[in-house]
């Protein structure tokens, strides 16, 4: 049926005049074989062919051909321009401005040469090439009965000759071998995780321990309590971080922000009373939401802002979340002063820093 209609349409189109065709539904069908609804949308056929300006007016045709030629020549100019500017505007070492100029000229000329080819080709196709409509009719996808029978025959023969259906022992072992084949990948990928360590364990601890000095990022110079004046902010790393083998992993967990407020501005809960020193407090810099560094400290409001998702922490209330998507306060690092006046950690953080993970216990906040 579809085939027949296609042929009908093709016949219509081969002529220059297009007449809206009547549908092939209904009229030719034998009575009683199908119920065909009469109000189905009629095939409107193709719209009548419209001549372009370039078909009618020889002047505009010449103009269009001149434009296309000019575009292709412009492309030549672009290509040569790219070569010339490569040498004329070189990249001078230690001069960022030259990088910028070089990129600008190269890019502009290469874009000119490519774009004009494209635009010229399209304009040629649209304005000058023949534009009569033609129809290529699709042939049916289903093969003939003979082809289908022959295909089944080939399969049967292959099964018989190989013995795939008969030799069930071989077949079973092959399927088993294929099923086991991807298994090594699991071990390879598992081995990309930190070696010999439980990731959850690694996430739960940082480099800080009792007596670790607080040092300045990036120099590693220890900080005296007297250096930290009121309103100051220090970006802190643990002493010995630069010698750590996995420096970045350790820094990502151990980064700390040190602030000094007036001691009366701090409102520590009873179990955290001794964690600050004379108004100096240290909090993890890793946001408890998704781990961005929280370091936008406002020294008058004592708010810490995370730049990624606008979580706000109030330092006067033990870094309680006062706005944004973070769900837990920033973990506080208990600090003290050693005999030489340097700030040291009392212990590691009392809970894992940063965002939640599967194995994280939920009872740290109450502990």
């Amino acid at each position, binding site marked *: 049926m579809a085939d027949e209609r296609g042929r009908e349409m093709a016949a219509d189109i081969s002529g220059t005049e297009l007449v809206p065709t009547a549908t092939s539904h209904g009229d030719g069908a034998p009575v009683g074989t199908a119920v065909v609804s009469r109000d189905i949308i009629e095939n409107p056929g193709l719209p009548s062919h*419209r001549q*372009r*300006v*370039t078909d009618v007016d020889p002047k505009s045709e010449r103009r269009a051909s001149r434009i296309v030629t000019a575009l292709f020549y412009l492309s030549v100019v672009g290509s040569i321009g790219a070569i010339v500017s490569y040498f004329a505007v070189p990249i001078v070492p230690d001069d*960022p*401005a030259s*990088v*910028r100029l070089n*990129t*600008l000229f190269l890019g502009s000329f290469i874009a000119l040469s490519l774009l004009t080819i494209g635009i010229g080709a*399209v304009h040629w196709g*649209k*304005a000058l090439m023949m*534009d009569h409509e033609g129809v290529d009719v699709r042939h049916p996808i289903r093969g003939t009965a003979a082809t289908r029978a022959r295909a089944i025959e080939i399969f049967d023969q292959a099964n018989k000759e190989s013995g795939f259906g008969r030799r069930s022992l071989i077949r079973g072992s092959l399927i088993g071998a294929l099923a086991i084949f991807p298994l090594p990948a699991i071990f390879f990928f598992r081995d990309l995780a930190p070696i010999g360590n439980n990731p959850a364990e690694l996430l739960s601890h940082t480099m800080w321990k009792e007596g670790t000095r607080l040092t*300045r*990022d*990036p120099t590693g110079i220890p*900080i*005296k309590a*007297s*250096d*930290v*004046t*009121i*309103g*100051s*902010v*220090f*970006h802190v790393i643990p002493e010995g971080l630069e010698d750590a083998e996995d420096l970045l992993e350790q820094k990502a967990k151990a980064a700390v922000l040190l*602030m000094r407020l007036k001691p009366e501005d701090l409102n520590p809960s009873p179990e955290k009373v001794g964690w600050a020193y004379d108004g100096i407090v240290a909090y993890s810099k890793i946001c408890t939401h998704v781990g961005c*560094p929280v*370091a*936008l*400290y*406002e*020294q*008058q*409001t004592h*708010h810490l*802002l995370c*730049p990624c998702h*606008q979580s*706000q922490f109030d330092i006067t209330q033990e870094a309680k979340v006062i*706005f944004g998507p973070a769900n837990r306060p920033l973990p506080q690092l208990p600090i003290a002063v050693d005999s030489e006046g340097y700030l040291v950690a009392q212990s590691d953080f009392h809970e894992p820093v940063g965002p939640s993970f599967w194995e994280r216990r939920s009872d740290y906040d109450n502990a």
Partner: protein
Amino acid sequence: MSSAAQKKSRRRSTRTGRRHPLATVALIAIGLLFTGGAYALFNSTSSGTEAVAASQDQVDRGSKLFSANCATCHGMNLQGTSAGPSLLGVGAAAVDFQVGTGRMPLQNTGPQAPEKPAQFTTEDTAALAAYVASIAPGPGLPEAEYLDGGGDATHGAELFRINCAMCHNVAGAGGALTEGKYAPSLTGVSAKHIYEAMVTGPQNMPVFNDANLTPEDKRDIITSLKYLEDNPSPGGIELGNLGPVAEGLFLWIFGLGTIVALTVWLTARSN
């Protein structure tokens, strides 16, 4: 320049082993002329960067200016009122920053005092600074040697990324804080004001004292900011240096716009 000339003439005289009786006098005269000239030139082009010892006249003048312009909010004795903080111990640096950048006197209350054209002349600003510094000691005006932008830009940029970039943006373009406050753009801010801001921590900016960032560190940071300002970005148009938001918006509008326009043209029939 003067010292070079002195050295040169001295070397010549020692070589010949003879010296004109008036050579010393001439040398001193030339030296004085040069220093005086250089000082006058320096003073006229960038007056105020010199840390001049405050004279009593200056303090008296500052006192009058303070009573007339600042005391309403900051109190007659700098003790502060409900409308403004105490200025005891803020130092000359804080006054020079706040008044020199036009942030003070405050035009109207808001989340933050914005930068505006300076309301006082440089002499009046210096007098105010001298007066406030004379009441209680605090951070003084920065030494000119730390403001020359001749430090290590690479080290300065590293310190800037660690200590400043989270608020001021990695290229110093500024950024938003909470509740209408913001970290201002650092482009076009004078080296002196950048230095003073680090030392004093104006408004909600934290203090970066000399134990945290040494004067040399501050010089390096200023150098790196000046480098960014003086050198065009190798990556092309900066779009305000605001990063992925501005760049993404630009691409969405102009990049996708061009693609849409080309697609429409491609599929439209020729007339």
